[in-house]
């Protein structure tokens, strides 16, 4: 199961690692708790390379920031891989024993010289080479990434291109080394673990796999569909085609968060039935035929959450849900009863034990152990198993235990779907701010001294070229639509790049203009790369000091 599932490493491992590649992640703002662990690592002497189109607040903590052009991650990763091989720094014993497809990989990355990568990414070849050598020579090294890697039309290839580097150097399956995708929600990992994925049963058992199929049919006592379901983006396509006519949305706000959001809203509004189960009256809930008020996952609910390091922890209800709000499991159980199946009134522990009976990686995590040991990390196959600090340790064992070696993947640079043109000459990428969360459902209710709203950041050079002042209201247009925004001139942003957050859909409907091109393998839309044009509003006076105070 290499290349899927969860972060390979424990949080504390980053405190003891030697080299960190923070790739497409602004963890300082988006994952501030994890970033504290990372800061300890830096204080302990780790060297950090930040690969990001923007010099984010996270990148500012890096020893070296490599400001690659948006969507050129594969070119950079392949060049790193090629350089490691060319400098004979790859771990030949590890590759021989634990990986497969090396020769094909080597041939595939051969064209990606440092110079070629410099042409594509804009980052000096010597710096890419330096990062390659540092990563390969390190005793312990980790690659961390988030949505800068995955919110692209070729998200999975982006991830694979990074996994290749770990296979090449053996920075996997050992304490302090690993591949760490950071999760956004406190329990995103738990959602995936429980099977809230279109192609997985609980515990990452594959839909369509005959053995898994038989097991779950037996457990659930009814025949199951052997075909994988649709992920979010495909669901919207199916709505468009009219094959999906109803939706039951639990704790999501697609009416604000989908790319090309006008289109998404029209589709949701056009459904025969839309049921929304949420703790807030979100924009999606406003479109719904039925709204089911849910309880808050922590404070009002019993159960577990699972963090990015695969640690399952107990949460407990401290207060009762207000008004008519009810726990998610209670609502679902009640719904089942109305549909003719009585699941009784299972406790959180009952539900947990059912999971344990079906998911081998959770088998050893009894309720008592979770409470007594302060959480456990999967895989934890039996009651005597201490849990797993990191994954893929088996790659280092003499006997791979029947598992096949981990495969190299061939990935090629493609670049973003939205090409820059004379009509749309600027690149727009989106991201997050420390004090806000996604579409603001959970965070816009409180004040913050460092919140500035969804401004569009651009470089001083572009501001001069366009005659735009700091703080000016402008029209931002992509091939899909236009929004009005306020500019913020940022000395750190490279020329040709613009940036905005998307935390304030009520102020700026930024996903009106983002690209809904998506990755067929993961279903993630290309939020990170749109092409745009910035126009001054007709009514605006001529700016006499275009660069403003920041110039």
């Amino acid at each position, binding site marked *: 199961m290499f290349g899927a599932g969860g972060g390979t490493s424990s949080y504390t491992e980053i405190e003891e690692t030697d080299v960190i590649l923070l790739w497409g992640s602004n963890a300082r703002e988006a994952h501030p708790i994890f970033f504290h662990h990372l800061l300890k690592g*830096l204080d302990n002497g780790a060297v950090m390379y930040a690969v990001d189109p923007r010099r984010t*607040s996270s990148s*500012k903590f890096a*020893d*070296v*920031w490599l400001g*690659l052009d948006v969507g050129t991650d594969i070119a950079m990763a392949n060049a790193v891989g090629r350089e490691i091989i060319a400098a004979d720094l790859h771990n030949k014993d590890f590759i021989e024993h634990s990986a497969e497809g090396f020769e094909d990989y080597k041939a595939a990355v051969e064209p990606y010289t440092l110079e070629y990568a410099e042409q594509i990414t*804009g980052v000096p070849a010597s710096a890419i080479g330096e990062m390659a050598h540092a990563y390969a020579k390190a005793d312990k090294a980790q690659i961390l990434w988030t949505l800068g890697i995955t919110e692209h039309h070729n998200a999975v290839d982006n991830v694979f291109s990074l996994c290749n580097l770990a296979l090449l150097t053996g920075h996997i399956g050992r304490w302090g080394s690993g591949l760490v995708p950071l999760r956004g929600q406190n329990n995103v990992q738990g959602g995936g673990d429980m099977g809230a994925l279109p192609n997985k049963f609980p515990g990452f058992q594959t839909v369509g796999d005959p053995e898994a199929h038989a097991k779950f049919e037996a457990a659930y006592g009814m025949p199951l569909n052997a075909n994988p379901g649709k992920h979010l983006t495909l669901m919207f396509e199916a709505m468009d085609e009219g094959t999906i006519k109803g939706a039951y949305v639990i704790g999501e706000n697609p009416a604000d968060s989908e790319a090309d959001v006008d289109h998404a809203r029209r589709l949701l509004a056009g459904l025969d039935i839309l049921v929304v189960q949420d703790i807030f009256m979100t924009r999606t809930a406003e479109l719904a035929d039925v709204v089911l008020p849910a309880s808050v996952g922590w404070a009002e609910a019993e159960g577990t959450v699972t963090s990015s390091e695969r640690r399952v922890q107990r949460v407990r209800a401290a207060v009762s849900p207000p008004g008519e709000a009810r726990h998610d499991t209670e609502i679902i159980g009640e719904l089942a009863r109305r549909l003719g199946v009585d699941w009784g009134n299972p406790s959180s522990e009952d539900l947990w034990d059912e999971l344990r009976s079906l998911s081998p990686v959770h088998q050893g995590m009894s309720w008592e152990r979770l409470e007594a040991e302060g959480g456990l990390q999967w895989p934890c196959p039996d009651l005597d198993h201490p849990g797993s600090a990191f994954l893929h340790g088996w790659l280092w064992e003499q006997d791979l235990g029947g598992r096949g070696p981990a495969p190299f993947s061939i990935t090629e640079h493609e670049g973003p779907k939205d090409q820059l043109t004379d009509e749309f000459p600027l690149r727009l990428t989106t991201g997050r701010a420390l004090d806000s969360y996604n579409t603001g459902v959970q965070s816009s209710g409180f004040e913050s001294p460092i919140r500035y709203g969804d401004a569009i950041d651009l470089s001083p050079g572009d501001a001069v070229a366009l005659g735009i002042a700091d703080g000016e209201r402008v029209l931002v247009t992509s091939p899909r639509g236009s929004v009005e925004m306020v500019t913020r001139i940022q000395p750190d942003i490279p020329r040709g790049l613009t940036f905005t957050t998307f935390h304030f859909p009520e102020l700026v409907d930024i996903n009106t203009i983002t690209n809904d091109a998506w990755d067929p393998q993961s279903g993630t839309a290309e939020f990170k790369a749109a092409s745009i044009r910035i126009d001054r509003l007709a009514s605006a006076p001529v700016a006499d000091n275009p660069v403003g105070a920041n110039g």
Partner: protein
Amino acid sequence: MADLYISEDQADKIELAAVAAVLGGVSVVVHESERLVRAGTRRRHSHRHLLLPALHALHNAKGWISPGGLNHVCELLQVPPAEAYGVATFYDMFRVEEPEHEGDVVHVCVDSACQIAGNEDLISAIEAGGAHVHRSPCLGQCERAPAQFIQGVGRPDHVPADDDPLLFHQAGDPTLRLLKRVGLVDPVSLDSYSQHGGYEALAAAVAMGAEAVCTAVADSGLSGRGGAAFPTGVKWRAVAAEHGRPKHVVANCDESEPGTFKDRFVMENDPFALIEALTIAGFATGAENGWIYIRGEYPLATARLQNAIEQARAAGLLGNDAAGSGHTFDIELRRGAGAYICGEETALFASLEGFRGEPRSKPPFPTTHGLFGEPTAINNPETLLNALDIMLIGPHNYRSRGTERSPGTKLLCLSGRVAQPGVYEVEFGATLGDALELAGGITGSGELAAVLMGGAAGSFVGPDSLDMPLTLEDTRERGTTLGSGVVMAFTTEIDILDVLVRISEFFRNESCGQCVPCRIGTVRQHETMVHLQRTGSLDAARRALVDDISRVMVDASICGLGHTAASAINSALALGLITGVES
């Protein structure tokens, strides 16, 4: 550092130039191209030690550290302004508010030796002349009491008395070891130093090898002369045994104990000797980095050491393959900025690293976690000077003078009511009476009432102690200390209570405030002394309070400042030097 919030105040041209002169274009964040920037925690950590020199430059340029100047330094070094402000306000020599007066500041010493030598008259005279006076803790010029030090604005600092010819009564005495060149050698000439036997000790050290040097120092019985008397050989061996990390040797020239001026005397008059001795320490311990941390009020010693370092470097006596030893060693000189606590070794490290000079808990000890958390041998200059003789004459001959447990000679700082105050080198075992005689005996009206041994952190002894041999063991046996070699004589005409009030005020001001017993204890102690002075009496309850405070400070303070802050006062009360104190 990403989380850096800088106000809008900006440095002016003078400040920019001053900082550029000392930092030489150094910046933590380096923009190599629009898409490549170097910065990071390690660069930030490795540049932090430049904060103190940068603050000195700012202060010297304008006479204060302005918010704009501080912002500029903070941006270059990526230090949060609040933290840099905390560092700036830690030191007595730095002001962070614009002064109302123009130009230089005249620091006049208000501690014991100057207090009894008419410092208030001097202050009045200077103020009458229109200059601005800052009442300063001990300036380390007790032989020239009342002492002054001029802090320059836009020009170097200056000590008026440095223009006077050297007065050294033992000059040329053949029995001298540590001061044998003083008065004979030209302190600004490496050639002159060489002609007077300079760098023969280093050659001998290189010839015998690092391990043998450590052995010789250990066999000599040399112990630290800063006050704690820790065996130097043990310290050096411990650092020599550390491998795999950068190592340091530090000369602790932050001589700030009131009454102490011996190190200044040596550094001003035989600076190459300290450079050579520190090089030997570096060779013996395997440390490549030598540091001299000198107190900010010593402009002449600073200039002469800096000159000596540069001449030694030019002559190949520092740098790669220093003096042909095969060992790389160089020395960096740093100035303190007026903080007694920075003489405490771990506080000195913190200060040198660019932080507030607050002591750290020990263990771990400097030999494993010293400067920058790396193995460090830190020694007093006088201690280091002894190593020269040990190299030249061997440990056996070295022990031919002094006593079994206190071998060698000792520098004494004789001040107060003696006829010829100054630095004197005596053999361990000479009596207190001998020492006073060496300085021409008691002078002025009245009889000898008490002698303060070891400085403000030491203790008073009465005239009945004139027969006390000046050795580590004899002073300890009599409940006092040699400390840093302070011998300050007080006569019956002097109001000792005034001196005690000032000593208690000194500790109150100099407590770094980090640990509670010292922060509060020194204040309570001062209040009690002021009460005694105002009312003329100290009842049994208050006397008990003084004892309580003293016990808590000794038991529970982090560092030696708190441990010794009550020592002089306790001894004075015990000797009955103060009337009106109930027991």
